[in-house]
């Protein structure tokens, strides 16, 4: 099983595909989920705590907008864990919200810079494209298992 970072990072479809094909998706939802379920937060559910933008400084400098740093505090640790990645280019907003373009630019760059197995796909606009889209994801994920990528490979 390989840890696969997905972009858009909260895409339920990508997350589900990675999971179905036997790998572990690294998605935003699980990180937000931890925050929401953590006992002791003043007024749950809140996606991040006021401390998070400070933690985000590890990934983006102080002159970067606070919202980018807050997002990076959730996504940064996932990127560190990532053993493979799937990036969908120019996705539709309903495919998974990628709210801040600056964060998106940074995380796409960081995934590419990590030199891990990476699949970059265009967002499908027709049914035929969608079938190819799913096929290519499956092929990529199957390849990860076959090539033995990832420390936790089965």
């Amino acid at each position, binding site marked *: 099983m390989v840890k696969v970072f997905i972009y858009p990072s909260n895409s339920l479809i990508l997350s589900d595909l990675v999971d179905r094909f036997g790998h572990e998706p690294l998605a935003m939802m699980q990180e937000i989920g931890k925050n929401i379920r953590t006992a002791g937060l003043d007024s749950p559910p*809140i996606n991040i705590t006021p401390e998070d933008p400070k933690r985000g400084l590890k990934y983006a400098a102080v002159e970067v907008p606070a919202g980018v740093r807050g997002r990076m505090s959730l996504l940064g640790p996932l990127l560190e864990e990532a053993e493979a990645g799937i990036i969908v280019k120019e996705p539709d907003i309903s495919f998974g919200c990628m*709210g801040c373009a600056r964060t998106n630019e940074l995380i796409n760059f960081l995934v590419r810079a990590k030199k891990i197995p990476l699949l970059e796909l265009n967002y499908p606009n027709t049914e035929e494209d969608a079938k190819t889209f799913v096929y290519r994801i499956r092929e990529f994920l199957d390849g990860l298992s076959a090539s033995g990528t990832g420390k936790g490979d089965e």
Partner: protein
Amino acid sequence: MGKENLVKIAQLSCGSVYSGIQQEIEMAAGMVDAEIIYPEITIDDVKVVQEEFGLQVASPDLRLMMARAKALVDGKVRADAVLIATCFRCAEGALVRNEIRRYIHENSKLPVISYSFTERTTAATLLTRLEALTTTARRRSLLAREHQEGLTAGIDSGSTTTKAVIMKDDKVVGTGWVPTVKVMESATEALDNAMKEAGITRDDIQALGVTGYGRFLIGEEFKASLIQEEITVNSKGAVYLAGFQKGQATVIDIGGMDNKAISVQDGIPGMFTMGGICAGASGRFLEMTAKRLGVDITELGALAVKGMRENVEMNSYCIVFGIQSLVNSLAKGSSADDVAAAACFSVVEQVFMQQLQEVEVKEPLIMVGGSALIAGVPRAMEKLLQIKVTVPPYAQYIGAVGAALLASGFINK
């Protein structure tokens, strides 16, 4: 603050959740009896909004903001006021924030406040802004008042000085100006002085309005008809005194403790910033300079106008290091004129860097507050911005005049 009608504030924002300040926004709203709502829209609305707006942006959350703004303007969602907020330092966010604010302003009657936040934004920072927003929503008809009627009084209980005016039929007939020591005593003294000058007694006053830091305390004690934060009051007072009640204007108030820069439309505040952490950018710095030069604060302006600020090397705007620079310059032989000019310029430059970057500066630019009377200050602002600065009569009584003007709406109520 007593319970008032619930105001529905539509929040149009990008990044507030991930900056960790959403709960602060909601807390501040609760303090002013307001409820934050998020206008609902469909995904299709988001898809087409860029074409309709003519503004293409990369961030989907900014597109969402535009779609929500359109839903408000189209009347699909009901709200009483709008809060527009994006991350400080995001250029794309700043563009959208400005355009949405303008769009709502031009196409609806909704009061709008826009703000760029950092992760350190707290409910306390937002409180005056939301107070101004909700008051504008609740009292729009009051803010439309263009004339002062009857005999009314206004008190501005500021952090450094307390000002009072008596007004009668659109004229200031009495003024009082005292340093703020004890809030109540200073207010009483200022009002007594104003009444004495006007030749009236407390019983003659038909309505009283109060504003400034001490507004809640003095408002309660004096049983004021109007207790209002200084943003709306100063905006109204400034355009009233300067004769620009219609159209756009920018109001700058360099106070003893904090500065306000307000973008005004028809006398109603739109965007504004309040700064006050750094004493180097305030009236306090000018007071210290005057003291060091051995002149009265009222003489500083005349000196500054004669001086050349370029002759003085100022390495810092900090009140400590700034004064040190001025002292060093004096020791090297700089003239008092040049030092006064440098002090005025440094205050103005810091206001420009810290505050005017966030507010749209549109002519006429009206400078108010005691510092506006130090001639070197508006002169330095004119040089820096390359636009004409208007200093209206009674500029130092701006809050008290605004309060007296608005209070006249309460006569016979």
